[in-house]
């Protein structure tokens, strides 16, 4: 079942630029420029892109707080903006930089209030809360007013608050921003478990690519308002020529360079005794190693997996694949 469906989605903003003492020029800027996206029930999608790429704008259009300039969008079969309050009952939203909790109330009271606001039956509420308390370790600070919580504690509270009404779709806008390592891991483990259960659809925006590596099988990359990649992480690596690298330490430099298809020398150090090869997959690493053993005395080898940060940075700066 398709839960999120968008086509030709576009959002333009009017920007006024000073062009004289009193004169202002207006310029139309497309923050989102024709996005097509289809997400099935239970999918966990990472939605990434550089600052200003249009991630939050997309999220706002999907949740019904921003009206698209053009295009169609449906979430849970509803039109987000006109049917916003109905949609609100069926989605959960966490904005890492904003709070949906009541500042002056203890977390426990915020949750009780949400139960009434979302008209959740008492047993259902109690079940979900018990689950979150266990997985997110909430008990230690359940009675502390929200304003006194640390960022990590608050974020765990925010996640719980977004899930207590049993949303079908969970939108997370940078849920790990500013968190320490332990809190990040707690949040990721919780989301991984939620994703594994398979009945909540999750759309996650983040700048922390470790979030994506840990959590999302599908990755949508947006840049300047357009989707530049929609597929798995492996497909991204394949498409943008991310390469595994093999670093070898030799007793003596090679007499003649090796010629193997798909293998290039990235760098040589220590007078040719340390060589870094880049492999595009045409030749297996094992074959390269056996050729090296034939050619010289091999002292040490190590294989470096492609780095997601690298490939995404390349994507952002629009360096084409070689």
């Amino acid at each position, binding site marked *: 079942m398709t839960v999120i469906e968008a086509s030709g989605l576009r*959002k333009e*903003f*009017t920007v006024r630029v000073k062009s004289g003492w009193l004169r202002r020029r207006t310029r139309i800027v497309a*923050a989102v420029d024709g996005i097509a996206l289809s997400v099935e029930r239970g999918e966990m999608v990472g939605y990434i892109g550089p600052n200003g790429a249009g991630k939050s*704008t997309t999220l*706002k259009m999907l*949740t*019904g*707080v*921003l*009206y698209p300039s053009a295009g169609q969008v449906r979430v849970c079969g509803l039109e987000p*903006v006109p049917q*916003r*309050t*109905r949609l*609100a*009952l*069926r*989605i959960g*939203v966490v*904005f890492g930089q*904003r*709070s*949906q909790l*009541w500042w*002056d*109330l203890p977390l426990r*009271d915020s949750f*009780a*209030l949400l*139960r*009434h*606001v*979302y*008209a*959740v039956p008492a*047993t*259902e509420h*109690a*079940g*979900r809360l*018990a*689950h*979150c308390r*266990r997985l997110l370790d909430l008990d230690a600070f359940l009675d502390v*007013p929200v304003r006194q919580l640390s960022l990590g504690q608050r974020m765990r509270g925010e996640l719980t608050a977004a*899930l207590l*009404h*049993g*949303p*079908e779709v969970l939108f997370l806008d940078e849920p790990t921003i500013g968190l320490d390592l332990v809190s990040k891991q707690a949040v990721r483990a919780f989301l991984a478990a*939620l994703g594994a*259960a398979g*009945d*909540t659809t999750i759309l996650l925006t983040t700048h922390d690519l470790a979030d994506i590596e840990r959590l999302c099988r599908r990755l949508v990359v947006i840049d300047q308002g357009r989707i530049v990649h929609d597929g798995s992480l492996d497909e991204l690596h394949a498409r943008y020529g991310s390469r595994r690298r093999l670093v070898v330490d030799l007793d003596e430099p090679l007499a003649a360079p090796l010629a193997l298809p798909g293998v290039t020398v990235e760098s040589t150090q220590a007078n040719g005794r340390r060589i870094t090869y880049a492999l595009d997959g045409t030749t297996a690493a094992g074959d390269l190693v056996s050729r090296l053993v034939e050619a010289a005395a091999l002292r040490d080898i190590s294989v470096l997996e492609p780095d997601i940060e690298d490939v995404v940075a390349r994507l952002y700066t629009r360096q084409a694949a070689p």
Partner: protein
Amino acid sequence: MRGDDSLAPHATGSRAPSYRAYLALAAAGFQRYATYRQATVAAVVTNSVFGFLRFAVMLAVIDAGTRTVAGYDNRQLATFVWAGQGLIGVVLLWALPEFAERIRTGDVITDLLRPIDPMSQLLAADLGRAGYAVLTRFVVPVVVGALVFDLYAPRRQVTYALFACSTLLATLVCFSCRYLVNAAAYWLLDVRGPQTAWTLTSGIFGGLYFPVWFFPDAMAIGLIVATPFPSVIQIPLDILVERGSPAVQLGLLGVQAGWVVTLLALCRWVQRRGERKLVIQGG
């Protein structure tokens, strides 16, 4: 729904927030203010101190011959001042522009993402807050006033009921006015201007600094009927000190009710326009 202890989505079906949601929001409003006891103490002390100042000024203008001013006698005037000092806290004449701040920072989108519209959320919470204020900020200045001065006690039992209704309506009028000031942030971002205008006009034309009957009668009647300001302070106090017959009192309640309907409708309209602006232009 699956087993008790899972996060499985709620079975799709009709579900809408009921009156319980509003009661819970009101209870949260009550609790929120009850949390800050020192702030409550500071507020009632301030209101009481200013009660002495205001009453001293009023006494100075009482006509030595008739012992009345603008139709109020000494005891009515004392009640007007002291109950007025309590009423400030109940209607919350001066509040921080919190909602405007939420609009300015964009936090308002989390309000929009709830199944209840932002205005109803705030109204329910404000009524809860007013309930707490009745028990604290209203009672203390009235008791202080009663201990030190001779206050006017209503002669007709029905006055108490009318005063309670009038106070509720005054709270709604005041809420609406504050809401409109805050909602100006959808267009202005900074609401210090409207806020200052509200503080001044509500004080001068609402009966806080002095009863509106200090103005010429025609002007006073014009203010009462044609502006919402006297509905906040002047009308509830006139009802309490039994200025005019029960029929006049009922008429005053009618004026307040008219303003409540008009202003809440206006708030709703402004909120829609503001949301439209936010949702279309992106704040």
